[in-house]
């Protein structure tokens, strides 16, 4: 490489400093790629001892691991004869168990000293109590001596999984003392266990009233009802608490469990009268309208035989898709339909108050996917009063280019839009990324960045038009000795 003469240095500016970026054009990244080649090309004797490489099954789990065998046995069972295996009763046990045992008592049992032989000696009995199976004893065991314990003692026993009885807490005051004591020891399992007892032994009006003043207990109760799927009671509770918005949301959530679209639509309709916040009321209304429209569109498109459906068969139904996906679908399959039809983009845009920006983005994606460059152009074309067409966009043109590129637009199309990018930095990085040579070269020329032109030339094919263009630019300037401004002017006239 011949170095430019000193006088040229005055003309050319220096290249910008480049910091590390997450960009695969980065130098360090190409360095890494080289390392990869290097590492992979190192020749090692092919008798690879595989002993330190994990054997992996089809599912990716290491062979011999527990996760792996679980799947294996599950599949072998499926192929065997199933009917002869005994079935286990799966009815819930907690509800029929009476008040005797807390949730935590199901998982804890009292200590049985000296049973552990296999532990390393560093553990004394106190630090590692062994938990022998308390519940294997008859359930009546020990009830006599636990029947008159204080709330404190009872809660402690519940925590430790020792036998206890809640039956003796008869008065409301005693029950509440028990609850407050459970809350005082922070044990969520004990709190929930006491609440289960209260739920059975108190009228819901009284329970709700008492919970109002007990935030922690209330939260546990709400969570418990959620987990048990006691929707009705939950809605009643929230209503009693005056939390009407939460109640409405809770009710609305139920739609997720309804699979049939007709029933789901009807359910959403029934939600419209719920006391949502003003904002959410609009959203729920939209949800209902959307599904209603989708059902209509789906029914008609399922048997549609227009050209577009044959050329690009639908991969999935449009039911339950978000609004924007529905708009995209309509821009893809129903572009140009009149606003009167439910499936037309303009109808969807209007019904759901979609912003211009959002509309353009979506339509652009759909039309670019179909490679309808004409439609893409018309999205941005505006005529001024003289009748000239100009391109305008509510989203940055760098974004437009990006979307076009992701839909594999040809270089000519990309180039046109790269040229429309306002910000010079974004324009250059876009041009580099999408290999719009002309734009890159012109930008470097305008920046008078000789170094970058030389670097870029090396990336091009020798004697390609772009290569020659750079060559010409470099030669022209080297030849000229005119003052800066004039030489700049000259380049423009040469190109």
């Amino acid at each position, binding site marked *: 490489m011949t170095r430019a003469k000193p006088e040229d240095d005055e003309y050319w500016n220096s290249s910008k400093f480049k910091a590390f970026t997450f960009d695969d054009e980065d130098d360090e990244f190409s360095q890494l790629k080289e390392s990869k080649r290097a590492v992979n090309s190192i020749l090692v004797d092919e008798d690879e001892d595989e002993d330190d490489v994990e054997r992996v099954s089809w599912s990716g789990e290491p062979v011999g691991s527990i996760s792996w065998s679980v799947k294996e046995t599950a599949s072998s069972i499926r192929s065997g004869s199933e009917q002869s295996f005994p079935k286990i009763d799966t009815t819930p046990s907690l509800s029929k168990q009476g008040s005797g045992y807390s949730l935590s008592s199901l998982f804890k049992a009292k200590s049985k000293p000296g049973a552990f032989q296999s532990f390393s000696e560093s553990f004394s009995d106190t630090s590692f*109590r062994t938990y022998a199976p308390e519940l294997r004893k008859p359930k009546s065991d020990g009830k006599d001596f636990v029947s008159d314990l204080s709330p404190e003692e009872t809660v402690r026993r519940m925590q430790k999984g020792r036998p206890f009885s809640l039956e003796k807490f008869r008065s409301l005051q005693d029950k509440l003392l028990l609850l407050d004591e459970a809350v005082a020891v922070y044990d969520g399992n004990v709190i929930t266990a006491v609440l289960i007892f209260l739920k059975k032994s108190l009228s819901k009006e009284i329970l709700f009233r008492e919970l109002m003043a007990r935030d922690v207990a209330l939260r546990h109760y709400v969570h418990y009802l959620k987990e048990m799927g006691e929707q009705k009671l939950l809605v009643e509770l929230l209503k009693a608490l*005056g939390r009407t918005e939460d109640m409405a949301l809770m009710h609305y959530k139920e739609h*997720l469990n309804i699979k049939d679209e007709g029933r789901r639509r009807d359910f959403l309709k029934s939600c419209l009268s719920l006391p949502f916040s003003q904002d959410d009321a609009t959203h729920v209304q939209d949800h209902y309208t959307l599904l209603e429209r989708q059902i209509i569109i789906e029914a008609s498109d399922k048997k549609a035989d227009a050209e577009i459906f044959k050329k690009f068969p639908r991969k999935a139904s449009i039911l339950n898709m978000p609004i924007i996906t529905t708009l995209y679908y309509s821009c893809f399959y129903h572009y140009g339909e009149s606003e009167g039809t439910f499936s037309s983009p303009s109808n969807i845009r209007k019904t759901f108050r979609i912003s211009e*920006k959002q509309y353009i983005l979506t339509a652009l994606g759909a039309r670019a996917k179909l490679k309808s460059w004409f439609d893409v152009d018309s999205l941005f074309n505006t005529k001024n009063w003289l009748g000239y067409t100009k391109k305008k966009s509510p989203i940055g043109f760098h974004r437009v280019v990006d979307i076009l590129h992701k839909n594999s637009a040809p270089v000519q199309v990309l180039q046109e839009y790269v040229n429309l990018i306002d910000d010079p930095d974004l324009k250059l990085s876009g041009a580099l990324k999408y290999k719009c040579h002309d734009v890159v070269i012109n930008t470097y020329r305008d920046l008078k960045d000789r170094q970058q032109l030389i670097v870029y030339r090396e990336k091009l094919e020798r004697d390609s038009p772009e290569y020659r263009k750079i060559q010409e630019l470099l030669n022209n300037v080297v030849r000229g000795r005119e003052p800066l401004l004039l030489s700049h002017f000259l380049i423009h006239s040469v190109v």
Partner: protein
Amino acid sequence: MAHTEWKDAPGLPDFSLLKRLARDQLIFLLEQLPGKKDLFIDADLMSPLDRIANVTILKQHEVDKLYKVELKPIVSSSDQLCFLIRPRIQTVKWISDVTTDEWNFYILPLDDDILSLELPEFFRDNFLEGDQRWVTTAGSALRLLQSVYGSFSKVYGIGRCAKMVYESWRELMEDGEQRTRQPEFAKVFLVDRDVDFVTPLCSQVVYEGLVDDLFRIKCGSVEFGPDVTSSDKSIKVMLNSQDKVFSEIRNEHFSNVFGFLSQKAKNLQTAYDKRRGMDIQQMKAFVADELKGLKQEHRLLSLHIGASESMMKKKTKQDFQELLKTEHSLLEGFEIRECITYIEEHINRQVSMIDSLRLLCLLSITENGLLSKDYRSLKAQYLQSYGIEHLLTFANLRQLGLLEEQQAGETLTVMESKVGKLVNDKTVGKLTDAFSSLAKKSNFRALSKRLALVPKSGEEYDLRVPRDMAYVFSGAYIPLSCKLIEQVLERDGWTGMEEVTRMLNGQEFAVTGGSSSSEARSKTDAQRIVLVMFLGGCTFSEISALRFLGKERGCRFIVVTTAITNSSRLLEALLDNSA
């Protein structure tokens, strides 16, 4: 490389003991059921179980078949069924009448300095639902550590849950006999995840964090797909300090990793090249002493190079650079309008639903809530793009204080006077407000200023030679959680940080332990080991930052967490868009 050597760093206790302990107890429990039995395992217990036992051990104790708990009717040929489950209401309900034992499996050591409770649901249960069911579990984990490794001289903490866990732990210890053992940790720090939501919402750029964000590390192991392995199969790899290549790059900013791997590749080539010109004797020695190690390194090197390459490709594809720029602007409070436009377009284009949500939350926390018109417009656009049912998700985020609408004309003083009024007000209104009061003002901007979390812009930050913990976020932000830990350890308490704790909604504490009087305190290694417990999850970036801090201060941190988390896991736990 910045973190490879631990000069003058204390050694760590041997946590493999915990695995042995859990295994022995499992065996003991299996022996309580003599004869053949089928074992049903909770899906989320399988990976942890894999780390402490294997099929052979189970078979030795007459486990016949293994099943996953699926809450469906059971089909089994065995007379005896054994269930290994987490105590969840649904599961317990499904299993029905059985006898139970408790398997004290609280802690899974994921690495030399990472202990996990493997309880990802801790976060939602505790912070969103307000259910304290795991408080005792966390307390028991601490008791276990104390029993095995000795007591602590000082305990600090911040957060509602941290306080409860401390109380639960204390009570458990008072129950048992105090054991006077040489302490192995000097200090314990308990911190609630909701003290710092900003950190887990940021994109991770240290190697381990990035691997977790992109490939999801599960129980210390990651599955690299064909794009990484350059073959048609996937490989599961354990990622920990045993992996010599990984252990050198895990804490590094991603931009340093390329150079490091390239250098390693060159060294490897040189080492292999040594074979040339060797005589038989030398060759024999080479094969015996070096070849195996080289091959191992070779394998690991190609794996991590493959991973780096694949991550680079993925990140380029999603315009990571622009995303990072937006995050940094939000942290700095700079060009917020531009950030909102970026987020809006992100939503409009239906790119990653989680990333959009993450940016919205980051915007809300750093700005102390969104202006009403922004909140409404962004929420509406989000629902249009990702589904209207997400209004349930928005309700959750609002309750947690992650994504909020600013109240009109509300300033801090107005807010405070409101709070003051609440205390005296005994109407139902008060209670409904109290119900959702777990949501708190973030005060991020003020905290950031006070604690100097965001370095002045314009300053050069050399990521090769990190000068503070901010390097884990490209020099743009010091994780709040880690900064708090640093400050409290430095001050040996919360004194002088009153304003900070007030902005964090209080709930801080510092307790001096019983064994603090022991002589020779400053001499033992143990006095330089700090145990940090994250309630609600901790990210790899925070772990890297603490490792850096430890190196700076000549101490070592052991992280105990309810689970490893990152932005996706955190937000996915709060979604409510499916049945």
